[in-house]
């Protein structure tokens, strides 16, 4: 996208005033999004973006500029202006650039650009049909099919460069069910870092069937209980709790700012010894996977917690440098318009030994939180809240009534010590995570787990 000679010129222009690190990130992206609601294709939209971001680090400060262009004069001018932010004499000069390679190689079979809009429309219509036929209680179905293809080129003053490309496809379905005055919703998505071959192995109708099932079953929901209870958290999306309540606190920028409860805890026991947690962007075709992070560093598996002991944080270039640690390939950025920051990829609690059914059976009185609508955490103190979108009462080991309007509230580090059982049914779910105004594709995952107590915020006092 940018040739080596020009790259060197840009990197050196950035460094000539005394910066210690410079980087160029170029991106070309094409996106398509089709939305079906009210039984019709409401919107079909496409977008084309191209540009590059220039980064300069001087001492602890990062200076950043981006332009919607890959033209030489425009980039060099931006580099010149950016370098003026630093006022020293330069020493570093980039003489050689060599390619960095990643072991993450995932061929794409059906590129979005080769799929006709008609075919995409058919996918959405089948999704809509399936959900509407699921039950007469269903009054609305909204589905989105989006795809992305991008090319990326990254080079930095440490002499590494990489060429990368990404293909992503996402189908999401929201269903609204109504019975008299009660309205409930169900949501499910399927998202992969791959082409349209995703639908060869996973039927779109399964996604809409699941969304419809949740909406309809929740029509029968009773008010959620309040207070401290035993909670069984379901597999796949249940992992969002670890992601929010612990994962964010393990991102090195939070550690550096003294805004994490996990500061100075490496090598220490922070969780029950049955807990192992991993961040792994190299799982083929997973939604949070990539070959290189946003700084051109090859992706790698990062074991965060092993048998209850904290092993490592999540680093990007700048935080690793500052803390004298190894980069972990987690410097992610939303686009050329954004600064890379340490972020999770596919983050999950590892497989346990227990049968999920017997975990449920072991609970006398509690709730089963199967699906969540998301959550929020204050990483500085570890406090979190999660909205339960599909949950049930557990009475004497039996899953009974669905419950509505329940939230879990608690503290991440405390919960880690209260995980008392881990199932053998590890599964994953895709989503988007927002941090610092940037959105990233993430996957969360876990088997069924049992937490000895969490505060459930319902309306039934």
């Amino acid at each position, binding site marked *: 996208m940018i040739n080596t000679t020009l790259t060197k010129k840009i990197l050196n222009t950035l460094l000539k005033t005394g910066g210690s690190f410079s980087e160029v990130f170029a991106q070309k992206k094409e996106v398509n999004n089709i939305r079906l609601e009210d039984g019709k*294709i409401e*919107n*079909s*939209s*496409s*977008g*084309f*973006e*191209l540009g590059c971001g220039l980064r300069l680090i001087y001492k*602890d*400060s*990062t*200076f*950043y*500029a981006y*332009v*919607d*262009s890959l033209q030489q004069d*425009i980039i060099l*001018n*931006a580099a010149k*202006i950016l370098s*003026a*932010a630093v006022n020293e004499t330069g020493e570093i000069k980039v003489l050689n650039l060599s390619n960095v390679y990643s072991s993450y190689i995932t061929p794409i079979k059906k590129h979005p650009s080769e799929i006709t809009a*008609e075919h*995409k*429309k058919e996918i959405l219509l089948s999704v809509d049909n399936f959900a509407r036929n699921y039950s007469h209680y269903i*009054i*609305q179905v909204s589905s989105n099919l989006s795809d992305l293809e991008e090319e990326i080129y990254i080079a930095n003053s440490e002499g590494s460069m990489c060429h990368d490309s990404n293909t992503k496809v996402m189908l999401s379905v929201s269903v*609204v069910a*109504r019975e008299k005055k009660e*309205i409930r*919703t169900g949501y499910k998505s399927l998202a992969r870092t791959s082409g349209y071959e995703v639908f060869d192995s996973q039927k779109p109708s399964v996604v809409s069937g699941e969304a419809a099932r949740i909406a309809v079953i929740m029509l029968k929901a009773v008010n959620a209980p*309040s*207070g401290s209870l035993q909670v069984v958290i379901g597999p796949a999306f249940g992992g969002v709790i670890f992601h929010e309540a612990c994962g964010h606190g393990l991102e090195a920028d939070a550690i550096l*700012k*003294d*805004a994490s409860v996990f500061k100075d805890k490496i090598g220490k026991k922070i969780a029950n010894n049955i807990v192992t947690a991993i961040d792994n962007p190299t799982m083929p075709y997973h939604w949070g996977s990539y070959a290189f992070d946003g700084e051109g560093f090859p992706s790698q598996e990062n074991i965060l917690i092993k048998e209850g002991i904290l092993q490592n944080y999540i680093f990007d270039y700048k935080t690793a440098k500052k803390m004298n640690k190894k980069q972990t390939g987690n410097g992610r950025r939303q686009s050329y*318009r954004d600064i890379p920051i340490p972020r999770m990829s596919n983050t999950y609690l590892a497989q346990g030994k227990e049968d999920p059914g017997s975990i449920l059976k072991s609970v006398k009185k509690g709730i089963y939180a199967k699906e*969540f609508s998301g*959550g*929020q*955490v*204050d990483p*500085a*103190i570890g*406090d*979190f*809240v999660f*909205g339960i979108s599909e949950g049930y009462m557990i009475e004497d080991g039996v899953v009974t009534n669905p419950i*509505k*309007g*329940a*939230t879990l*509230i*608690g503290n991440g580090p405390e919960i880690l010590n209260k995980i008392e059982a881990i199932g053998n049914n590890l599964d994953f779910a895709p989503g988007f995570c927002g941090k610092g105004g940037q959105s990233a594709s993430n996957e969360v995952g876990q088997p069924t787990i049992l937490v000895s107590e969490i*505060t459930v*915020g319902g*309306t039934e*006092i």
Partner: protein
Amino acid sequence: MEEIVKKKNGKSLAQFCNDASLKIKKLKVDEFEIYGASSTHNELELFNEQIDNLSFAETKGLGIRIFKDKRVGYSYTSILDEYNIDKCIDRAFSNSKITFQEEFNYLPLEREFKNSKGTIDKKILFSEDFFNFDIKQKIQLARELEILAKKKDKRVTGINNLIYNDSLDEVMILNSTGFFDSYRTTSAFIYLSVISKEKDDTSTGDFFGYNRSPGEFNLEEIAANAVNRSVWILGGKKIKSQVVDIVLDPFVAAQLLGIIAGIVTADTVQKGKSLLKDRIGDKIFKGDFDIIDDGTLSYGLASKPFDGEGVPKGKTVIFENGILKTYLYNTYTARKDKKFSTGNAVRSSYKSTPEVGVSNFYLKPSKTSLEKIIKSVDKGFYVIDIIGLHSGTNPISGQISVGAKGLWIDKGSFLKPVKEVTIATDLLSFCKSIDKIGDDLRFMPSGGYIGSPSMLVKDIALSGK
């Protein structure tokens, strides 16, 4: 650094829009619209009074809507060369072929305008003072805020986040009915989150400033608010689950009001996703409250001369004396309901098509002070901050359950800090339980620009121990 802007590309936004329109006119389309936007953006993050990140950028983009056989297609591009603009037009055209055909799919006509044109002086969207601040002064301003905050209370141990950003934006719409207009806005935002510690307890608190120019920030107030919101909660404990009266801080109340903002849009109503469907004329609030959407409010940061499809903005009273009077409309949803557009077509950027959304949306304050409200509470919970609003509320089913922290009220005065509890209700019960509102209307950016005074809400379920 702002030089980048000028040198980047010789063409103005108007020229890009015009060039694109000439190209589209050569195609066999029925109607078209070009939405152009350009932005100069600065962002700054400080840590320990030093620059952590400083970024600046200039962007431009076009979003093109093509109408053909009563179908609409959309495409956008940030690559403004001839080849890519052609590609963008072609794609908008081809996208129109798969979307649904409906008689209401055509551009807004002037005779459908409910609000008159030119009710807003474009000058109010724009501050000349904005240009008096160079990057050094902006850094200085952020530093000053950090120093102020650290001085406020010795329990403040650090800064969690200190972000400043500003932007100078231009928006332009050109369409085939002959509409061609633009406006420019300036805005500056500063956000501070502080960490305080006492014994084993850590607490965070945040506050912000949002104005047309950094010169309008009240740093003293921002620092004091962020610090208070942090230190007041120190030593906070969970309390036992109970049904209790709660007093909501204006910013907490505004966030909950934002959920109501989401269900008064005609789009959600027409699709059966609003609890306010078929409720026009009904008394939704117990009190005689007025809720207004005013796209022309002089100090409103969401004010604009026209909406996302060129329809003049105006003032719409949505609830009057607690009674639902109307929904908010863009052109398409208005035609469906045989109404006029209220000028509420919103676009978050050139990347998106016009949807229905609020502008400056607020609950009209009363004359009762917050102090008086607190004094009237025998036993209650003053909520300073909530967490998990998006995951804990479902605007369609109406369920609300969010994490909360604040102060316990006993016999009209604050007794002790409370944290790690939830408050739960459902949206329509919430509306019915608002007992009193304060005189302290405050706005915050949240979707639109949403404003609320403090609220006293009766009998809410609180979950704790």
